[in-house]
């Protein structure tokens, strides 16, 4: 076994390299989400009326030049309320998702890597929590803690923990015995450093997708809770609450229901589409490695 060997193995050369391509599947939903985020930032200052003032015009006035989205039963400007409501819902759902997905993923990563009794205990608790519908669980927590913005964030965050823990656990399971993990063990690294310094960067793309999906779900949950009266309390403009308040006269004046509903719907679809695009770009990247 001494002879010289041809320089490289017999690999087939590539004829042309691939350039970075932006795809509309990614760009369109990202742009929509960006518009919402911008609205959340500056909505209050560009709104033509105050969101809480009564009688900015006649009650239940249809959309017109002065009231783009019409007015509700108290004569409040629906357009202004939708604009101002963006900040509430975005702030609440972002912080709830960060809290829930963050805590859940940390739990899942540790539980998946450590295995054994730790994993068994955590996963059975997760099973119990997953048996309860998310909305019901959130309502249970809110009725016992009392409705407030902070409690809303806590409740939704709690609802998200079990699902995120599962996702993170399943992402980390196949990596447990990889060579780099064992090499880290052989240099004396403990589990916190292996989980967060070695494994987290690898599974992060999967967790980002999970974050987007949970964020979309949080928007729906907050709107649903608002509609049911457990969420944001009046007179704060909240899309779910607005739908709930205006639902009695939806047959004669649909606009106070239609526009907040559209606002929720478009955002949820956009965030879901973004998560989808992220997933497939992740898969594409994986294909390139193979």
């Amino acid at each position: 076994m001494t002879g010289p060997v041809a320089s490289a193995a017999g690999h087939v050369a590539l004829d042309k390299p691939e350039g970075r391509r932006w795809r509309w599947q990614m760009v369109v939903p990202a742009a929509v989400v960006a518009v919402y985020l911008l609205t959340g930032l500056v909505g209050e200052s560009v709104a033509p009326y105050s969101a809480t003032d009564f009688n900015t015009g006649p009650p239940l006035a249809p959309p017109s030049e002065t009231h783009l989205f019409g007015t509700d039963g108290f004569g409040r400007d629906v357009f202004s309320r939708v604009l101002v409501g963006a900040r509430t819902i975005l702030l609440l759902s972002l912080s709830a998702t960060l809290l829930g997905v963050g805590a859940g993923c940390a739990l899942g990563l540790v539980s998946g890597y450590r295995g054994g009794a730790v994993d068994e205990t955590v996963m059975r608790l997760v099973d119990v929590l997953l048996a309860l519908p998310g909305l019901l669980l959130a309502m249970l927590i809110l009725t016992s803690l009392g409705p407030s913005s902070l409690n809303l964030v806590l409740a939704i965050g709690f609802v998200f923990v079990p699902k995120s823990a599962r996702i993170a656990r399943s992402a980390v399971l196949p990596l447990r015995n990889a060579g780099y993990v064992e090499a880290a063990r052989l240099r004396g690294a403990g589990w916190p450093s292996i989980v967060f310094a070695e494994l987290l960067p690898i599974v992060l793309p999967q967790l980002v997708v999970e974050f987007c999906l949970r964020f979309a779900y949080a928007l729906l949950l907050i709107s649903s809770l608002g509609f049911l009266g457990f969420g944001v309390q009046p007179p704060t403009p909240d899309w779910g609450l607005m739908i709930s308040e205006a639902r009695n006269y939806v047959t004669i004046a649909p606009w106070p229901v239609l526009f907040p509903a559209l606002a929720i719907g478009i955002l949820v679809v956009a965030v879901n589409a973004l998560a989808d695009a992220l997933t497939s770009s992740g898969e594409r990247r994986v294909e390139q490695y193979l």
Partner: protein
Amino acid sequence: MALLEVAHLNVGYASVRGSVRAVRDVSFSLDRDEVLGVVGESGSGKSTLAHALMGYRMRGTSMLEGDVTFDGIPLLRSPATELRKIWGGRIAMVHQNPLASLTPTMRVGEQIAETIRQHRNATAAEARSAVAACLRAVELPEGSDIARRYPHQLSGGQRQRITIAIALALEPDLMILDEPTTNLDATTEAVILDLLEDIRSRTRMAMVYISHNLGVIARVATRVAVMYAGEIVETGSVSQIYTAPVHSYTRALLESLPRPGNSKPKAAVLSGEPVLAAMSIRKSFGRRRATVRAVRGVSLHVPRGAVVGLVGESGSGKSTLLRCIAGLERPESGTIQYSGCDLPPNLADRGKDMLRTMQMVFQDPESTLNPSLSIGTSLRRHLIALKATDGVTARRSVDEALRRVRLDTAFRGRLPRELSGGEKQRVAIARAFLSAPDLVLCDEPLSSLDVSVQAAVCRLLLDLQRDYGTSYVFVSHDLAIVRYMSDRIVVMYLGEVVEEGDAESFDRRPLHPYTEALFSATPIPDPEAATARVRLKSQISDADRERPGCIFNARCHRRKGAECSEIAPPWRDTGGRRYRCHWSPAELAAQQGNEAASAARG
């Protein structure tokens, strides 16, 4: 006229990074009764060629040009309906992974019958008898329930026999075999190769046999084509290719192979206290009824500065033993002495000093480096954890480590996915040597690499060992590589050591019947080589682990009698070499001598 005529074949793929031409201007012809061995390394386009020969457009094929004429039929220009009659009926294919090519939810007998019914009108009784004939042809026991089993209930060798039986079902004119024995153990591989040889001499079938293993090709082929980067760089008869290769790539490929008897330059005299002494290590997996006793009381001594080769087939417990020593698994019982001190079984109880002096190189180059970290970061992390150093010194040490494994320091900034398998394994070796360890545990570091890369990594390991005076425990299933690398060889079978001794003494002759079978099964890249044919009939079985007596007795070809299955065999010492068997060295020598004599007469 030739059976198969290939002219100017070009195959290309569309990939996300652009189009790839996997087969470039390949031409050859194949007569009936010929076996063309196609040899090349991974990525050389062998499998693509195999599919193109059938006129099969693989998914993603963007270019399929040239001519493939099979018995007068232009395959690349035939409609799909025409091709479907030929596939399976006149050209059959056997793939590398039988578990993937068999349907998991269908009994294997039914899968053979399905192929027959697809091409011929056969009654149930006719199909049944045809299936029985197929099973006979691949030497699977008739009358057993094999036909009624599902693929997962068969061993790897049996599965590959079934796929060959399916290929044979319609007595095709041409059989294309794509690395059919690569996933099998050496002893099973030898049996399958015998079977193929036998089938060929009976049926006069033409074959295209694709493999990366020059030893296997030497055994089966009548003509050889060497592929490199999608081109056939050399073709010729077997003896021509192996004795007088013309192309430089073929020469390099042949020179990179270890042959029996080859060995590294002799190491210094090995004496003094051993760097590692593991005593009666035991390790089981699973709970209660499903327990597998992976390592059953193995002791291992590693002299300072020596390479101890641990050889055995899959399931022999060699990797588990290594992981117990490393502290990655916790042995149930046994003690490990390291440089004269007791080594705690738990990694957490081993101090930094102990960790620093014992490091490991892993088998799979794809998972040995963290894909999200640059090479520099990976190495720096390892270094800083083992030796408290500041950033500047660490960086200098990392550069030095890269140079030591003959990689450019520019690799620091690269991600693992930008590296080839051999380069990744070099980085892994650099990582193991960062802390200047006394002992490096190598868990099959070469098995996932191409032959030419294997040779280079092998040389690198030996150079480092010489320069640092490091000791290795080198695990491999490849006896030739272990023989080349090691000063001492330990042969393991089903969790027990069956033979150990100085590496040189293994050149003379094997003692233990299992070692003898391993030697005989190792394909030698020399078509003229005459080896004693020792074939193990039955399959390796976990049930053997639980019986009293000799662990090997169920498969042994030199079974002595009842004592083999009832009484544990004694260790027999023959000066620098010892083995466990009921036969004494003299009795074994007499048997081997008689067989050689009768083989010479016959």
